């Protein structure tokens, strides 16, 4: 059986890859002819400004080449019957008039097509042909004909060498049996015309945020130059938030991502136009995710972006095309002139959602998104059908990716038998031993990321002058599917036996190119990566000097490549058990899900009982009972035969490697040794005990303490709440994400129990993102008073004996007020656990600047660590709510299952090796090895038995400490041998720069 995934955006892609890597067959259905979704249109991603295509493209390629994934694009679901475990799905594939199996993606047809049609990819700001490919890196890389624009001239059919154009192609009905379904339908952007007062569609210099994104992109309509409609470079730009969000007339909910993407737009625009002045108009700045607040601070401090706490009422156009923006702040009206206005449009449910809700038989919520429950965040109302990404609520890329993995974990449970589709067969490896090096060099433009600073053509020509190089080329994106084909073709045509790619960082892209080599019948280790983006074009300005440096780096790469040897992967068995650190909501959820998949779990909790922070939550904002959830989870965990719980216990030591860890757990009954294949870190976080605002006084408490009191039935008559206590300051710059919600939750509870109670909330920005917005609205309606304060003018709490008073400044009245409440409640920060530091050292995984655990990649690998076999879930990642914690826990399960579902994993071949003829068995390397991978062993020779060093490959990490210790150069790490690095140095330094 298999899984159907509907929607080929980043969520659908991630869910597909997880399931396919766990050995399931996946059908990925996409409405458009190509996958990639909204993310493919993005120029950069917040908060790291990573190039969106650079991180997406490897994933697209992975999907395209994965043996377990079948992409059914340009298709829609027509009917679904059956139930969980056995759905029958009918899919209609619409004709593209090009045979995908024949099209090589050469693009000659598109260059000769006489039609100019509106280019949807560039949001209507450029033209495309009628036969087209949505974007250059698209997968599947096959052109399609837009029949609504095609004039039927027949040119494309005539010029197509591959004979792929077929005007008679008919629609095709595909029927599949699948055991479960994941809906990753994405969302639709709000149509800004519906807010007529902003003049979108009438004033040419009012554009939407997605149009601005395309303008900023190197692959956009003006190749990354920002022009307005009349060709003028805008010097003063207004960005308007909440267009189609938090708006009673259109969509009342918050779209969650716009504040941070507007911040990104402002920063990137400043990089394009350094003297531009950028204003962001927002009611609240909602940069609540991991690293987002710091990002907004950078926008203000380093880039001079101006944030106005205001909503724009109307826009007028002047004769010169400039725009007058009218806005209100603190009850006063203002007018300001701008060159360009960008509308930050929000998300709505996807166009087909109504139709799909009927076809799949699932319920939608009040806003038309797929209905989920906060305790089962990826399950729809129908068993066996799951949801991920924006289809159920607006969210950013990492949250979508985490949900995608989470829904994959859920989908796994419907697989009774794992009808695993075999390993991909690669062509037989060509034996290159003894051959003279024939090196192929590929220099990447990376759009303009490299090409704008490094002369890539000159670099490619320079490569030809180096010994051993027989072929050299430069390509727009080395990672795209077409370039991969070019590399494979060059390997064949020129009989290449070594490949050097000068592009970005090997840390992200090396696996992709290694695989390309395998597909071309070359050993993957005959590949060398030269980093001319992160370590050249992005860090230098002077083109001539950067090009010289790039030559020197390339020369080093080619010198090393000459000495590369083919290496064989190391295979190891996987212990199908997991160690889970932390017995809170995340840890228990992960343990139960893993146990359901047949994985034995060791759950280690430092406290005397399970539950973590969940123990202190008595009600949720949406009226659910977390204590019921807690009791249910604890009972299930404790009665599960596959889960062994260690309470009052901590991790003492861990050794081993992915698939084969050996840990020592310190328990009250002594040390217990366990073997396991994976580790999930779910150690949580805690509430900050404030040092400010008179905390410690009987009448000054935190939100968690308030909730406990209300839980006991003690309802205060008057409360002043202070937000951002211990967060968003110099000492702790991040936003704690959950406290706005907590304050409103408790305020509403107080109002519910005592409608006469007075609740005043002093806030900086109210961050009730997503569908939480309605509770903010409800609180205002029910008489909770919200007063804004700035960090420059914070409230003051004074205690006098048993009394407490709060003095604060009211911006609208323009004066200081004093309140004497029964309780002052501090919305205190969520802070990382103190023992994170120690744990990070034990596990060899990093922490971020704030002391939370640092994931492998903030966008696309939210629950992975850079170290294989270790995963991350819950508050140990960053502050988050119950549904988000469950998502992350399930995501960690899915990621762990990609490993634990296998009997064997294949490990990197770059390991230490002993040249026995040089080894004296002195034992220095044995002592130096940090993982005891080397031993002195007996070897039989013709003259008798000799003692020599010997490496246990499955344990060896390839660190090379041994190689630098060996007095005779007898032990080397393959891929970093003494001679290879020596040669690289020679190459590096022979170029005069």
């Amino acid at each position, binding site marked *: 059986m298999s899984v159907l995934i509907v929607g080929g955006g980043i969520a659908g892609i991630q869910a597909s890859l997880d399931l396919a890597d766990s050995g399931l067959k996946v059908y990925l259905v996409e409405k458009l002819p190509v996958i990639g979704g909204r993310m493919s249109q993005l120029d950069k991603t917040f908060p790291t400004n990573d190039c969106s295509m650079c991180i997406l493209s490897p994933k697209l390629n992975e999907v395209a080449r994965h043996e377990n994934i079948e992409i059914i694009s340009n298709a829609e679901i027509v009917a679904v019957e059956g139930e969980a475990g056995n759905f029958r799905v009918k899919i209609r594939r619409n004709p593209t008039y090009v045979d995908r199996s024949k099209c090589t993606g050469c693009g000659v047809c598109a260059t000769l097509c006489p039609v100019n049609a509106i280019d949807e990819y560039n949001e209507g700001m450029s033209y495309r042909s009628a036969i087209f490919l949505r974007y250059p890196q698209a997968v599947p890389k096959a052109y399609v004909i837009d029949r609504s624009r095609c004039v039927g001239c027949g040119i494309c059919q005539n010029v197509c060498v591959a004979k792929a154009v077929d005007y008679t192609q008919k629609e095709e009905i595909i029927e599949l049996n699948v055991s479960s379904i994941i809906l990753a339908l994405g969302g639709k952007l709000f149509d800004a015309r519906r807010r007529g007062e902003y003049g979108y569609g009438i004033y040419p210099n009012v554009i939407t945020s997605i149009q601005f994104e395309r303008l900023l992109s190197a692959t956009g309509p003006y190749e990354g130059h920002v022009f307005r409609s009349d060709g003028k470079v805008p010097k003063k730009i207004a960005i308007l938030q909440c267009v189609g969000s938090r708006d009673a007339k259109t969509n009342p909910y918050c779209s969650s991502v716009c504040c941070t993407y507007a911040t990104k737009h402002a920063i990137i625009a400043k990089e394009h136009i350094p003297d531009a002045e950028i204003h962001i108009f927002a009611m609240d700045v909602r940069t609540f995710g991991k690293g987002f607040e710091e990002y907004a601070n950078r926008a203000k401090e380093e880039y001079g972006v101006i944030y106005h706490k205001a909503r724009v009422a109307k826009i007028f156009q002047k004769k010169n095309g400039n725009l007058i923006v009218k806005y209100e702040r603190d009850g006063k009206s203002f007018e300001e002139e701008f060159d360009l206005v960008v509308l930050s449009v929000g998300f709505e449910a996807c166009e087909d959602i109504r139709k799909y809700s009927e076809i799949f038989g699932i319920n939608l919520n009040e806003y038309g998104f797929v209905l989920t429950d906060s305790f089962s965040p990826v399950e729809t109302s129908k068993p066996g059908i799951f949801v991920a990404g924006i289809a159920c609520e607006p969210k950013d890329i990492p949250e979508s990716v985490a949900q995608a993995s989470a829904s994959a974990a859920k989908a796994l449970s419907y697989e009774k038998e794992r009808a695993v589709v075999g390993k991909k067969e690669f062509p037989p490896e060509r034996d290159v031993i003894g051959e003279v090096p024939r090196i192929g060099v590929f220099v990447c433009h990376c759009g303009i990321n490299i090409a704008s600073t490094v002369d890539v053509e000159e670099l490619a020509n320079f490569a030809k002058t180096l010994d051993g190089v027989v072929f050299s080329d430069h390509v727009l994106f080395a990672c795209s599917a077409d370039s991969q084909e070019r590399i494979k073709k060059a390997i064949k045509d020129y009989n290449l036996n070594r490949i050097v790619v000068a592009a970005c960082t090997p*840390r992200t892209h090396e696996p992709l190119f290694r695989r390309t080599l395998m597909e071309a019948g070359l050993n993957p280790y005959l590949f060398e990566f030269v980093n001319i983006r992160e370590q050249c074009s992005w860090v230098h300005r002077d083109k001539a000097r950067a090009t*010289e440096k790039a030559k020197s780096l390339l020369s080093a790469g080619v010198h090393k490549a000459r000495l590369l040897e083919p290496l064989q992967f190391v295979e190891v068995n996987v212990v199908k058990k997991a160690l889970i650190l932390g017995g809170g909501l995340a840890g228990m959820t992960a343990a139960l899900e893993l146990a359901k998949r047949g994985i034995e779990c060791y759950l280690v909790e430092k406290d005397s009982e399970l539950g973590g922070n969940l123990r202190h939550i008595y009600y949720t904002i949406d009226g659910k009972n977390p204590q019921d959830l807690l009791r249910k989870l604890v009972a299930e965990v404790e009665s599960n035969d596959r889960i062994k719980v260690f309470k009052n216990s901590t991790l003492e030591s861990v050794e081993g490697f992915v698939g084969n860890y050996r840990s020592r757990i310190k328990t009250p009954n002594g040390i217990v040794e366990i073997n396991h294949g994976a580790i999930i870190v779910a150690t949580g976080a805690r509430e900050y005990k404030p040092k400010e605002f008179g905390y410690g006084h009987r009448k000054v408490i935190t939100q968690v303490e308030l909730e406990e009191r209300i839980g006991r039935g003690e309802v205060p008559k008057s409360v002043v709440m202070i937000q951002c206590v211990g967060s968003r300051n110099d000492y702790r710059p991040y936003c704690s994400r959950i406290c706005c919600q907590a304050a409103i939750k408790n305020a509403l509870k107080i109002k519910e129990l005592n409608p006469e109670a007075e609740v005043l909330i002093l806030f900086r920005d109210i961050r009730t993102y997503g569908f939480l917005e309605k509770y903010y609205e409800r609180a205002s309606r029910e008489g909770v008073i919200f007063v804004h304060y700035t960090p420059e003018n914070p409230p003051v709490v004074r205690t006098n004996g048993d009394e407490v008073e709060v003095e604060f400044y009211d911006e609208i009245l323009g004066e200081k007020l004093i309140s004497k409440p029964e309780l002052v409640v501090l919305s205190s920060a969520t802070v990382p656990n103190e023992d994170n530091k120690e744990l990070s050292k034990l596990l060899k995984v990093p922490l971020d600047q704030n002391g939370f655990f640092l994931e492998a990649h903030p966008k696309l690998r939210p629950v992975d660590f850079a170290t294989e076999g270790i995963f991350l879930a819950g508050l140990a990642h960053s502050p988050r709510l119950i549904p988000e914690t469950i998502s992350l826990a399930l995501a960690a399960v899915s990621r762990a299952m990609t490993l634990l579902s296998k009997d064997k994993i294949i490990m990197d071949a770059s390991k230490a090796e002993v040249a026995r003829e040089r080894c004296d068995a002195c034992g220095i390397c044995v002592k130096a090895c940090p993982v005891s991978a080397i031993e002195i062993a007996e070897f039989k020779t013709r003259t008798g038995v000799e003692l020599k060093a010997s490496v246990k490959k499955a344990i060896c990490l*390839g*660190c090379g400490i041994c190689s*630098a210790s060996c007095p005779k150069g007898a032990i080397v790490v393959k891929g970093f041998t003494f001679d290879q690095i020596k040669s690289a*140095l*020679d190459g*590096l*330094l022979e170029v005069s720069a």
Partner: protein
Amino acid sequence: MKIVVFACNWCSYAGADLAGVSRLKYPEDVKIIRVMCSGMVNPAWILRAFRQGADGVVIAGCHPGDCHYMVGNYYAKKRYILLKELLNFIGFEDERLKLLWASASEGKKFAEEMAAFKNVVENLGEQEKLRWKE
């Protein structure tokens, strides 16, 4: 100036990548050779770099306690101290050899340290003592 940096894959190379992602500028003279661990850097490579005309060499690794391989950076430090003494002994300006701890999140530190080291090396002038002469 020619400055060679041996950067470990897990911390310093990632830190250099972060400097790039953050678009922090540093001198073009700095060129990085990726190694898996600072503990892998053979002192002979450093001498080879000077022989081939490097004006400065940096060994960049994880902070003490952060090594991906637990102890590799301690080995790097031991070898660094010994090599520096030897270089000093033969009258070579040992400031041309630098040990740097830079983590994956210290892009800024990496860029700043590179700019500072270039100044140090520039003040010493071109390196002649160990350069191979025909």
